[in-house]
């Protein structure tokens, strides 16, 4: 199973390396969203009681994760768009790949791409919104666990909505409500990590870890059922 996962992940990353959709299209889109947030929330507004911190800096953790979710939707759609042509999923199945392995491989490939996006968008958020950084270890843990959760749940749902029609509009409707807890937990943990606020950020990272484990397990169990046909 792990060997199949490795094969799938390497295949997807090779496709990405050759086509540069994530770095050439999704990344600039994410950067644009960060800039648009700057337009929609005036940079001159400050938050009372936070030593004149700007509203934009205060909202930065949440804005960053919303941006990541939007970019993740595109990356997930892409992960299945490359399989929908010519009955590729059938071919994978006939090649004898374990469905759980295919699932894990997809998750790993999207996770690698998403981590890259998060690093660049995170730097963008720090520069554009002038956010401080209090606890880098907590931030790193949050990013890794949130990415695992987003890609695990996201891959499962993108697979449910994959097919030749409707897919583009159905994926966000299915994926975003499920990822609401990730947005909550990652936003609050990031807030704790950058501002050192009183909230216990580690509790939220623990929730992210539990979320990732649940959806990795569900995905591995359910992927065979989803892939039975095409």
């Amino acid at each position, binding site marked *: 199973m792990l060997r199949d996962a490795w094969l799938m992940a390497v295949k997807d990353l090779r496709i990405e390396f050759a086509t540069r959709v994530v770095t050439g299209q999704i990344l600039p889109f994410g950067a644009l969203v960060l800039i648009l947030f700057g337009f929609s929330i005036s940079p001159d507004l400050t938050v009372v009681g936070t030593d004149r911190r700007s509203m934009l800096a205060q909202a930065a953790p949440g804005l960053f994760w919303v941006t990541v979710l939007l970019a993740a939707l595109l990356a997930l759609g892409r992960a299945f768009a490359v399989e929908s042509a010519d009955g590729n999923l059938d071919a994978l199945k006939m090649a004898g790949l374990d469905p759980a392995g295919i699932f894990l491989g997809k998750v790993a490939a999207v996770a690698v791409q998403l981590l890259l996006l998060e690093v660049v968008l995170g730097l963008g958020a720090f520069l554009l919104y002038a956010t401080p950084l209090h606890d880098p270890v907590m931030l790193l843990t949050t990013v890794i666990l949130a990415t695992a959760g987003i890609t695990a749940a996201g891959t*499962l749902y993108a697979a*449910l909505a994959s*097919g030749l029609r409707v897919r583009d509009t159905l994926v966000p*409707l*299915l994926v975003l*409500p499920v990822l609401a807890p990730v947005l*909550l937990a990652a936003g609050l943990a990031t807030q704790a990590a950058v501002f050192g606020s009183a909230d*216990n950020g580690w509790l939220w990272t623990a929730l992210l870890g539990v*979320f990732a484990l649940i959806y990795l397990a569900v995905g591995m169990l359910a992927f065979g059922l*989803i892939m039975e046909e095409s």
Partner: protein
Amino acid sequence: MTATSSKVTRVIGYSALAFTALALLFGLVISGPEVNMRDSVRLLYVHVPSILTAYLCFGITLVGSVIYLRNRSTFWDLVAGSAAEVGTLYLAFALITGAVWGKPTWGTYWEWDPRLTSTAVMFIMYLGYLALRRMELPHEVRSRRAAVLGVVNIINVIVVHYSVQWWRGLHQGRTFGLDPQIRDMQYFSWFLGTVALGLIAAWLIIHRFRVGWLERQLDEIHLEEALVERRGEGV
């Protein structure tokens, strides 16, 4: 089967009408206002039953989905789908009546109350489930995916419920701490509302199921006709 009504559904339908009339009479005329909430307590006679019925419907969807994944019968697929449709309708009704109730009670239509927030997310999840059921895919494929989602959705609902509760719990206390002084007549009105809304849900689910069943038959007839036509071309 050609019609969607039968003796059973007619009995359920007339009982639903009778109980609705009784619920209106007791809820609006006979029972009195509550101490804190005054007349807005009357909304709870439909709000609480509709959310309970919605949960019951999603429970039926879960059971139908699990059984479908075991035996792949059209029957259970349609049961799951019909119950989800009616459940989503009831959830929408509960959200609307909740908002109308919230205005006089909390002063706002919407509060970021944990239950309210997670219910709204749950509502959107089931809209997604219904959208998946309308995807243009072969029957078996769509039914199987819907069944997987019907099961996984319950996990989502639980995860969202607890994370939202935790979120609000860490930031502020309970949004409202009303201590309702519900009395006998009010309980009875609430009971009547529950029975009425439950009967209406049963009536709707059965009819929706039968419409779904007829749709499937129609699809098969079309397929047969197309096959005959093709064979005719070959001769």
